[in-house]
């Protein structure tokens, strides 16, 4: 498949770098949005690892997903500094409005909701991310608009 050769090229470009398999998987996430069985096979092949090794890496890191995320990917910080300023309530409201729990994606792939542990804006919470945009003092409206 044409797509496969592009992925293979992307993965091969990481050979020799520090921590290459992790970096290769991160690049697949960035270009493809999620990691498929075929991608696992390619990474295993290029780095001479077993598929089980690569699946083990994929399941370990929370940035890696084996299912597609929503076109709008909402991440709300669930850590202590944001708890102290109401992230639990915010998460409940957003979750109810979307009909999605943390870690879930809508069937039409329009939106997904995920928890995250700390974005480093701990004096200005609750903090959240919508796709690449980072939001301080996040409100329900910021996340749902």
């Amino acid at each position, binding site marked *: 498949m044409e797509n496969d050769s592009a992925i293979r090229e992307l993965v091969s470009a990481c050979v020799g770098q*520090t*921590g*290459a*398999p*992790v*970096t290769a*998987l*991160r690049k697949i996430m960035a270009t493809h949005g999620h990691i498929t069985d075929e991608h696992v096979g390619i990474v295993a092949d290029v*780095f001479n690892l077993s598929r089980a*090794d690569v699946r*083990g*890496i994929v399941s*370990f*890191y*929370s*940035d*890696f997903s084996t299912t597609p995320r929503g076109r709008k990917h909402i991440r709300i*910080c669930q*850590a*202590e*500094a*944001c*708890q*102290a*300023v109401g992230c639990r309530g915010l998460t409940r409201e957003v979750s109810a409005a979307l009909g999605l729990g943390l870690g879930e994606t809508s069937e039409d792939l329009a939106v997904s909701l995920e928890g*995250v*542990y*700390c*974005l*480093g*804006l*701990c*004096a*200005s*919470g609750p*903090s959240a991310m919508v796709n*690449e945009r*980072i*939001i*301080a*003092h996040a409100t329900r409206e910021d996340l749902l608009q």
Partner: protein
Amino acid sequence: MSRALVPNETLANALGANELARELGARGYQVVRSGGFGLAWLEPMLVIDGQAYGPVRDLDALEEVALGPVNEIPAIARQRRIIFDRCGRGNPMDYDPAWLLDQLRRSPREIIAEIRASGLRGRGGAGFPAHIKWQTVHDTPAPQKYIVVNADEGDSGTFADRLIMEGDPFRLIEGMLLAGHAVGADKGIVYLRSEYPLAARIFDQAIARARELGLLENFALELFIGAGAYICGEETSLLESLEGRRGEVRSKPPVPAVAGLFGQPTLVHNVISLCSVPGILRMGGAAYAEIGVGPSTGSMTFQLAGNIQRGGLYELPFGLSMRELVEDWGGGTRSGRPFGAVQLGGPLGAYLFEDALDTPLTYEATAKLGAGIGHGGLVVFDDTMDRVRQAHFAFAFCAHESCGKCTPCRIGAVRGKETMEALAAGEYTEDKIAVIAELCDVMEEASLCQMGGMTPIPVRSALGIAPGISE
């Protein structure tokens, strides 16, 4: 032409700094994207011809948020900014390497002696004397040695690593090159968490700039981006991750200073530990040791977070009390409700209440409380904090982030979480508390690393359980 410093910093950008920079440019200002000062409640904070304004929402109403000369803002002037002295003062890429090149001509022995005299202890959490690690890496013969920087700043309530890497990346590069020269390592890798994309972009630019300046002719400097795992802030897990695997912790010994990355001697330090090094060499180790209290020497980048009026980063000598930090610097809770608790030192840190607020912030005094300073983060809660819920979260977080290698952490955290759920549902019985106490004792005694070993600290402190009562 007026010169406007506009922070290029994640929080300031989230609050509109990029838009302000564009607008100032359109109005004919000479715009310089600087680092942030770390005063979160004033962001976005602009400095125009030495006068500070913040928080700026509207450029036509600047006078309403005028703060006076930037050097006279008490929240900056009263700090002891040794690490952060340059941060916020200009374009971080305008770097003059003369001082660094001069220092790199000193002998390794001399530099390690200064670090020993300074009493510097690791700022990442463990507080281990830095010079012992330096000497060990220096003394261990090997074909290759490494400097590994732990910038996997996952503790809630901390953002010092992010602020310095965004605002003064050359401070970290200085620390790495000096450490590399002292211990005999010519490769350095920064392990940065993926949640900090702006820090990654700015640090990449700084590496390119350092190369142009000829600073990297004898030192290979690399930036590695993590993939979302809190446990990778544990040094051996971080090394596993850097070798491209699951970040499962290793048993120690051997310590990384003897056998670390790819089995070679490796100096693993937190960002702020290495960023303390240039200041130590500038003033001399002995002078640095006079700052602070007793064996807690030097400055600490305290980070005030959570439910707080004036949160942010305050670089101060060790020794002030938590009350001074929370009340005087922080102005109390943001909600306006009475103070409830502070969690000191990240998710594995203790919940401390009103009766502990007069404790001085030193390694020694906090250890007496069964707590620790950690990476210097203080998360403030008001009186609505639910202790049972926070203890539940400590177990739940450990269950979520455990690498799974050792049983006490992998299973203990899940059992603790389930038991806390039963407690929260109203079954608050002595039996259940006894189970929690026993789990805490086992996790503390038998876990391979601090993830499982320190989860009992927030649990016990939130619930008021004494250590060792299960025996």
